[in-house]
Protein backbone atom coordinates (compact mmCIF):
# COMPACT_ATOMS: atom_id res chain seq x y z
CA UNK A 1 0.00 0.00 0.00
CA UNK A 2 2.80 2.39 0.93
CA UNK A 3 4.61 1.71 -2.33
CA UNK A 4 1.36 2.23 -4.28
CA UNK A 5 0.73 5.56 -2.53
CA UNK A 6 4.31 6.64 -3.26
CA UNK A 7 3.73 5.94 -6.96
CA UNK A 8 0.41 7.82 -7.05
CA UNK A 9 1.82 10.88 -5.27
CA UNK A 10 5.03 10.61 -7.29
CA UNK A 11 3.11 10.86 -10.56
CA UNK A 12 0.98 13.66 -9.15
CA UNK A 13 4.16 15.52 -8.27
CA UNK A 14 5.58 14.85 -11.74
CA UNK A 15 2.43 16.29 -13.29
CA UNK A 16 2.50 19.37 -11.04
CA UNK A 17 6.20 19.97 -11.73
CA UNK A 18 5.64 19.67 -15.49
CA UNK A 19 2.79 22.18 -15.40
CA UNK A 20 4.88 24.52 -13.27
CA UNK A 21 8.00 24.52 -15.42
CA UNK A 22 6.41 24.42 -18.88
CA UNK A 23 3.57 26.79 -18.00
CA UNK A 24 1.01 24.72 -19.93
CA UNK A 25 -2.68 25.35 -19.23
CA UNK A 26 -3.40 21.79 -18.03
CA UNK A 27 -3.78 20.85 -14.37
CA UNK A 28 -0.93 18.84 -12.86
CA UNK A 29 -3.20 16.01 -11.72
CA UNK A 30 -4.54 15.51 -15.26
CA UNK A 31 -0.97 15.29 -16.58
CA UNK A 32 -0.23 12.87 -13.72
CA UNK A 33 -3.14 10.68 -14.89
CA UNK A 34 -1.72 10.71 -18.40
CA UNK A 35 1.84 9.95 -17.24
CA UNK A 36 0.82 7.01 -15.05
CA UNK A 37 -1.19 5.53 -17.92
CA UNK A 38 1.86 5.81 -20.20
CA UNK A 39 4.15 4.33 -17.55
CA UNK A 40 1.81 1.34 -17.17
CA UNK A 41 1.52 0.88 -20.96
CA UNK A 42 5.29 1.06 -21.39
CA UNK A 43 5.70 -1.38 -18.47
CA UNK A 44 7.81 1.06 -16.47
CA UNK A 45 5.35 0.59 -13.58
CA UNK A 46 3.55 -2.67 -12.74
CA UNK A 47 -0.20 -2.63 -12.23
CA UNK A 48 -0.04 -4.55 -8.95
CA UNK A 49 2.35 -1.93 -7.55
CA UNK A 50 -0.18 0.90 -7.88
CA UNK A 51 -3.55 -0.87 -7.77
CA UNK A 52 -3.97 -1.06 -3.96
CA UNK A 53 -3.91 2.74 -3.65
CA UNK A 54 -5.71 3.61 -6.88
CA UNK A 55 -8.64 1.27 -6.14
CA UNK A 56 -9.16 2.84 -2.70
CA UNK A 57 -8.94 6.40 -4.06
CA UNK A 58 -11.50 5.67 -6.80
CA UNK A 59 -13.78 3.93 -4.30
CA UNK A 60 -13.98 7.13 -2.21
CA UNK A 61 -13.75 9.65 -5.05
CA UNK A 62 -17.25 10.92 -4.33
CA UNK A 63 -16.39 11.70 -0.69
CA UNK A 64 -13.48 13.88 -1.77
CA UNK A 65 -15.57 16.37 -3.71
CA UNK A 66 -18.21 16.85 -1.03
CA UNK A 67 -16.48 19.97 0.45
CA UNK A 68 -16.61 21.70 -2.95
CA UNK A 69 -20.28 20.80 -3.26
CA UNK A 70 -20.92 22.31 0.19
CA UNK A 71 -19.10 25.44 -1.04
CA UNK A 72 -22.00 26.05 -3.38
CA UNK A 73 -23.84 27.52 -0.34
CA UNK A 74 -21.61 30.60 -0.54
CA UNK A 75 -22.84 31.24 -4.09
CA UNK A 76 -26.44 30.41 -3.42
CA UNK A 77 -27.70 33.90 -4.30
CA UNK A 78 -25.94 33.92 -7.67
CA UNK A 79 -27.35 30.51 -8.55
CA UNK A 80 -30.81 31.56 -7.37
CA UNK A 81 -30.70 34.61 -9.63
CA UNK A 82 -29.79 32.62 -12.75
CA UNK A 83 -31.30 29.22 -11.94
CA UNK A 84 -33.63 29.16 -14.97
CA UNK A 85 -31.12 29.97 -17.77
CA UNK A 86 -28.52 27.72 -16.08
CA UNK A 87 -30.98 24.80 -15.86
CA UNK A 88 -32.18 25.23 -19.46
CA UNK A 89 -28.65 25.53 -20.89
CA UNK A 90 -27.15 22.70 -18.84
CA UNK A 91 -30.01 20.22 -19.41
CA UNK A 92 -30.26 20.97 -23.16
CA UNK A 93 -26.48 20.65 -23.53
CA UNK A 94 -26.42 17.37 -21.58
CA UNK A 95 -29.22 15.81 -23.66
CA UNK A 96 -27.51 16.83 -26.94
CA UNK A 97 -24.17 15.48 -25.68
CA UNK A 98 -25.76 12.16 -24.67
CA UNK A 99 -27.37 11.83 -28.09
CA UNK A 100 -24.33 12.79 -30.23
CA UNK A 101 -22.12 10.42 -28.29
CA UNK A 102 -24.63 7.53 -28.40
CA UNK A 103 -25.73 7.88 -32.04
CA UNK A 104 -22.14 7.61 -33.34
CA UNK A 105 -21.75 4.19 -31.73
CA UNK A 106 -25.32 3.09 -32.52
CA UNK A 107 -24.84 3.91 -36.26
CA UNK A 108 -21.54 2.02 -36.36
CA UNK A 109 -23.49 -1.10 -35.42
CA UNK A 110 -21.49 -1.88 -32.27
Amino acid at each position, binding site marked *: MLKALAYIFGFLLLGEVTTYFFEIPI*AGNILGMFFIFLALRLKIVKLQDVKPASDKLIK*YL*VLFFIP*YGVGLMVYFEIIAEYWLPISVAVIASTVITLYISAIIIEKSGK
Partner: protein
Amino acid sequence: MQEFFQLPVFGVFISIIAFAGARELRKKFNYALLTPVLVAIVFIIGFLLIFNIDYEHYNRGGRYISFFLGPSVVALGVFFYEKYEEVKQHLKVFLLSVTLGGITGILTVIIFLFLLKVPGFIIESLAAKSVTTPIAIEITKLTGGIPEITAGIVIAVGIFGNAFGPFILKKLGIKSKIAIGTALGTAAHGIGTARAFEESKLAGVYSGLAMCVNGIITALITPYLLELFLGLVS
Protein backbone atom coordinates in the same frame (compact mmCIF):
# COMPACT_ATOMS: atom_id res chain seq x y z
CA MET B 1 -19.36 25.85 20.75
CA GLN B 2 -18.48 28.05 17.75
CA GLU B 3 -14.81 27.54 18.56
CA PHE B 4 -15.23 23.80 18.28
CA PHE B 5 -16.67 24.19 14.78
CA GLN B 6 -13.54 26.05 13.72
CA LEU B 7 -11.32 23.06 14.46
CA PRO B 8 -10.30 21.18 11.30
CA VAL B 9 -11.52 17.93 12.85
CA PHE B 10 -15.12 19.20 12.68
CA GLY B 11 -15.07 19.58 8.87
CA VAL B 12 -13.38 16.21 8.42
CA PHE B 13 -15.75 14.44 10.79
CA ILE B 14 -19.03 15.83 9.45
CA SER B 15 -17.96 15.10 5.83
CA ILE B 16 -17.22 11.45 6.61
CA ILE B 17 -20.29 10.93 8.78
CA ALA B 18 -22.63 12.61 6.26
CA PHE B 19 -21.25 10.51 3.42
CA ALA B 20 -21.40 7.24 5.35
CA GLY B 21 -24.95 8.00 6.49
CA ALA B 22 -26.05 8.93 2.97
CA ARG B 23 -24.68 5.64 1.64
CA GLU B 24 -26.63 3.67 4.25
CA LEU B 25 -29.77 5.61 3.28
CA ARG B 26 -29.24 4.71 -0.37
CA LYS B 27 -29.01 1.01 0.53
CA LYS B 28 -32.42 1.19 2.21
CA PHE B 29 -34.21 3.32 -0.41
CA ASN B 30 -33.02 2.85 -3.97
CA TYR B 31 -34.25 6.09 -5.47
CA ALA B 32 -32.23 8.08 -8.06
CA LEU B 33 -32.43 11.45 -6.28
CA LEU B 34 -31.05 9.89 -3.08
CA THR B 35 -27.57 9.87 -4.63
CA PRO B 36 -25.21 9.77 -1.60
CA VAL B 37 -23.20 12.81 -2.67
CA LEU B 38 -26.34 14.97 -2.99
CA VAL B 39 -27.77 13.81 0.34
CA ALA B 40 -24.43 14.38 2.10
CA ILE B 41 -24.02 17.90 0.67
CA VAL B 42 -27.60 18.93 1.48
CA PHE B 43 -27.21 17.55 5.01
CA ILE B 44 -23.93 19.43 5.65
CA ILE B 45 -25.25 22.70 4.20
CA GLY B 46 -28.36 22.32 6.39
CA PHE B 47 -26.22 21.67 9.47
CA LEU B 48 -23.99 24.69 8.80
CA LEU B 49 -27.01 26.95 8.28
CA ILE B 50 -28.83 25.75 11.41
CA PHE B 51 -25.77 26.17 13.65
CA ASN B 52 -24.72 29.36 11.88
CA ILE B 53 -21.28 28.05 10.90
CA ASP B 54 -19.32 29.76 8.11
CA TYR B 55 -18.34 27.69 5.08
CA GLU B 56 -14.80 28.94 5.67
CA HIS B 57 -14.75 27.36 9.12
CA TYR B 58 -16.15 24.06 7.84
CA ASN B 59 -13.57 24.09 5.05
CA ARG B 60 -10.67 24.26 7.51
CA GLY B 61 -11.26 20.52 7.80
CA GLY B 62 -13.02 20.09 4.45
CA ARG B 63 -9.87 20.97 2.56
CA TYR B 64 -8.10 17.91 3.99
CA ILE B 65 -10.83 15.81 2.37
CA SER B 66 -10.78 17.61 -0.99
CA PHE B 67 -6.98 17.41 -1.07
CA PHE B 68 -7.42 13.76 -2.10
CA LEU B 69 -9.02 14.81 -5.38
CA GLY B 70 -5.51 15.34 -6.78
CA PRO B 71 -4.25 11.75 -6.28
CA SER B 72 -7.72 10.44 -7.24
CA VAL B 73 -7.39 11.91 -10.73
CA VAL B 74 -4.02 10.16 -11.06
CA ALA B 75 -5.77 6.95 -9.92
CA LEU B 76 -8.20 7.33 -12.85
CA GLY B 77 -5.19 6.82 -15.14
CA VAL B 78 -4.65 3.41 -13.50
CA PHE B 79 -8.34 2.56 -13.93
CA PHE B 80 -8.10 3.57 -17.59
CA TYR B 81 -5.10 1.29 -18.15
CA GLU B 82 -6.89 -1.65 -16.52
CA LYS B 83 -10.02 -1.34 -18.66
CA TYR B 84 -8.26 -0.27 -21.84
CA GLU B 85 -7.91 -3.87 -23.10
CA GLU B 86 -11.69 -4.33 -22.96
CA VAL B 87 -12.47 -1.50 -25.40
CA LYS B 88 -9.51 -2.03 -27.74
CA GLN B 89 -11.58 -3.70 -30.44
CA HIS B 90 -13.95 -0.74 -30.76
CA LEU B 91 -11.34 1.88 -29.99
CA LYS B 92 -11.72 4.11 -33.09
CA VAL B 93 -15.47 4.53 -32.96
CA PHE B 94 -15.31 4.88 -29.16
CA LEU B 95 -12.77 7.70 -29.36
CA LEU B 96 -14.76 9.40 -32.13
CA SER B 97 -17.92 9.23 -30.03
CA VAL B 98 -16.29 10.63 -26.88
CA THR B 99 -14.37 13.35 -28.76
CA LEU B 100 -17.38 14.64 -30.70
CA GLY B 101 -19.66 14.25 -27.67
CA GLY B 102 -17.15 16.04 -25.46
CA ILE B 103 -16.71 18.98 -27.84
CA THR B 104 -20.50 19.20 -28.28
CA GLY B 105 -20.93 19.32 -24.50
CA ILE B 106 -18.56 22.27 -24.10
CA LEU B 107 -19.70 24.26 -27.15
CA THR B 108 -23.45 23.87 -26.61
CA VAL B 109 -23.34 24.92 -22.95
CA ILE B 110 -21.16 27.96 -23.73
CA ILE B 111 -23.47 29.03 -26.59
CA PHE B 112 -26.72 28.43 -24.68
CA LEU B 113 -25.53 30.28 -21.55
CA PHE B 114 -24.31 33.14 -23.72
CA LEU B 115 -27.60 33.38 -25.64
CA LEU B 116 -29.49 33.39 -22.32
CA LYS B 117 -27.33 36.34 -21.19
CA VAL B 118 -25.72 34.62 -18.22
CA PRO B 119 -22.61 36.51 -16.91
CA GLY B 120 -19.17 35.45 -18.16
CA PHE B 121 -17.87 34.06 -14.86
CA ILE B 122 -20.77 31.59 -14.75
CA ILE B 123 -20.03 30.52 -18.36
CA GLU B 124 -16.38 30.02 -17.34
CA SER B 125 -17.52 27.97 -14.35
CA LEU B 126 -19.81 25.71 -16.39
CA ALA B 127 -17.92 25.10 -19.65
CA ALA B 128 -16.54 21.82 -18.27
CA LYS B 129 -19.86 20.70 -16.75
CA SER B 130 -19.82 17.22 -18.36
CA VAL B 131 -16.58 15.90 -16.86
CA THR B 132 -15.79 14.32 -13.52
CA THR B 133 -15.82 16.83 -10.63
CA PRO B 134 -12.08 16.87 -9.76
CA ILE B 135 -11.11 17.53 -13.38
CA ALA B 136 -13.88 20.10 -13.86
CA ILE B 137 -12.69 21.94 -10.73
CA GLU B 138 -9.13 22.11 -12.08
CA ILE B 139 -10.36 23.37 -15.47
CA THR B 140 -12.40 26.08 -13.76
CA LYS B 141 -9.38 27.20 -11.73
CA LEU B 142 -7.56 27.74 -15.04
CA THR B 143 -10.42 29.49 -16.85
CA GLY B 144 -11.09 31.94 -14.01
CA GLY B 145 -14.51 30.66 -12.97
CA ILE B 146 -15.66 29.72 -9.45
CA PRO B 147 -14.83 26.07 -8.57
CA GLU B 148 -17.66 25.75 -6.03
CA ILE B 149 -20.26 26.65 -8.69
CA THR B 150 -18.62 24.12 -11.01
CA ALA B 151 -18.78 21.38 -8.37
CA GLY B 152 -22.46 22.00 -7.60
CA ILE B 153 -23.60 22.00 -11.23
CA VAL B 154 -21.35 19.09 -12.26
CA ILE B 155 -22.88 16.96 -9.50
CA ALA B 156 -26.37 18.06 -10.67
CA VAL B 157 -25.50 17.07 -14.27
CA GLY B 158 -24.36 13.65 -13.03
CA ILE B 159 -27.59 13.13 -11.10
CA PHE B 160 -29.63 14.21 -14.13
CA GLY B 161 -27.76 11.75 -16.36
CA ASN B 162 -28.07 9.02 -13.73
CA ALA B 163 -31.81 9.53 -13.27
CA PHE B 164 -32.93 10.25 -16.86
CA GLY B 165 -30.03 9.38 -19.23
CA PRO B 166 -30.95 5.80 -20.19
CA PHE B 167 -34.66 6.73 -20.48
CA ILE B 168 -33.92 9.67 -22.83
CA LEU B 169 -31.51 7.62 -24.96
CA LYS B 170 -33.98 4.75 -25.35
CA LYS B 171 -36.72 7.23 -26.34
CA LEU B 172 -34.31 8.59 -28.98
CA GLY B 173 -33.95 5.09 -30.43
CA ILE B 174 -30.59 4.04 -28.94
CA LYS B 175 -30.45 0.29 -28.30
CA SER B 176 -26.74 -0.56 -28.03
CA LYS B 177 -25.49 -1.00 -24.45
CA ILE B 178 -22.06 0.23 -25.55
CA ALA B 179 -23.66 3.40 -26.95
CA ILE B 180 -25.63 4.03 -23.75
CA GLY B 181 -22.54 3.47 -21.57
CA THR B 182 -20.26 5.68 -23.64
CA ALA B 183 -22.87 8.46 -23.76
CA LEU B 184 -23.43 8.36 -19.98
CA GLY B 185 -19.70 8.55 -19.24
CA THR B 186 -19.16 11.35 -21.75
CA ALA B 187 -22.09 13.52 -20.64
CA ALA B 188 -22.58 12.61 -16.97
CA HIS B 189 -19.16 11.41 -15.67
CA GLY B 190 -18.90 9.15 -12.58
CA ILE B 191 -22.46 9.54 -11.34
CA GLY B 192 -23.70 8.61 -14.84
CA THR B 193 -21.24 5.70 -14.86
CA ALA B 194 -22.83 4.30 -11.69
CA ARG B 195 -26.09 4.07 -13.66
CA ALA B 196 -24.34 2.58 -16.70
CA PHE B 197 -23.13 -0.31 -14.48
CA GLU B 198 -26.78 -0.92 -13.56
CA GLU B 199 -27.58 -1.27 -17.31
CA SER B 200 -24.79 -3.82 -17.80
CA LYS B 201 -21.16 -4.41 -16.88
CA LEU B 202 -20.10 -3.70 -20.48
CA ALA B 203 -21.97 -0.38 -20.47
CA GLY B 204 -20.29 0.48 -17.15
CA VAL B 205 -16.77 -0.18 -18.41
CA TYR B 206 -17.36 1.94 -21.54
CA SER B 207 -18.86 4.65 -19.37
CA GLY B 208 -15.89 4.74 -16.99
CA LEU B 209 -13.46 4.97 -19.89
CA ALA B 210 -15.53 7.63 -21.64
CA MET B 211 -15.40 9.65 -18.39
CA CYS B 212 -11.57 9.49 -18.35
CA VAL B 213 -11.16 10.29 -22.06
CA ASN B 214 -13.61 13.17 -21.99
CA GLY B 215 -11.84 14.49 -18.88
CA ILE B 216 -8.60 14.74 -20.85
CA ILE B 217 -10.22 16.14 -24.01
CA THR B 218 -12.19 18.74 -22.08
CA ALA B 219 -9.13 19.73 -20.01
CA LEU B 220 -7.13 20.22 -23.21
CA ILE B 221 -9.60 22.28 -25.22
CA THR B 222 -11.87 24.15 -22.79
CA PRO B 223 -9.46 27.06 -22.09
CA TYR B 224 -9.01 27.59 -25.84
CA LEU B 225 -12.71 27.27 -26.72
CA LEU B 226 -13.61 29.75 -23.98
CA GLU B 227 -10.95 32.18 -25.08
CA LEU B 228 -12.01 31.83 -28.71
CA PHE B 229 -15.70 32.22 -28.00
CA LEU B 230 -15.67 34.88 -25.30
CA GLY B 231 -12.95 36.68 -27.28
CA LEU B 232 -15.09 36.65 -30.43
CA VAL B 233 -18.20 38.03 -28.80
CA SER B 234 -16.68 40.69 -26.57
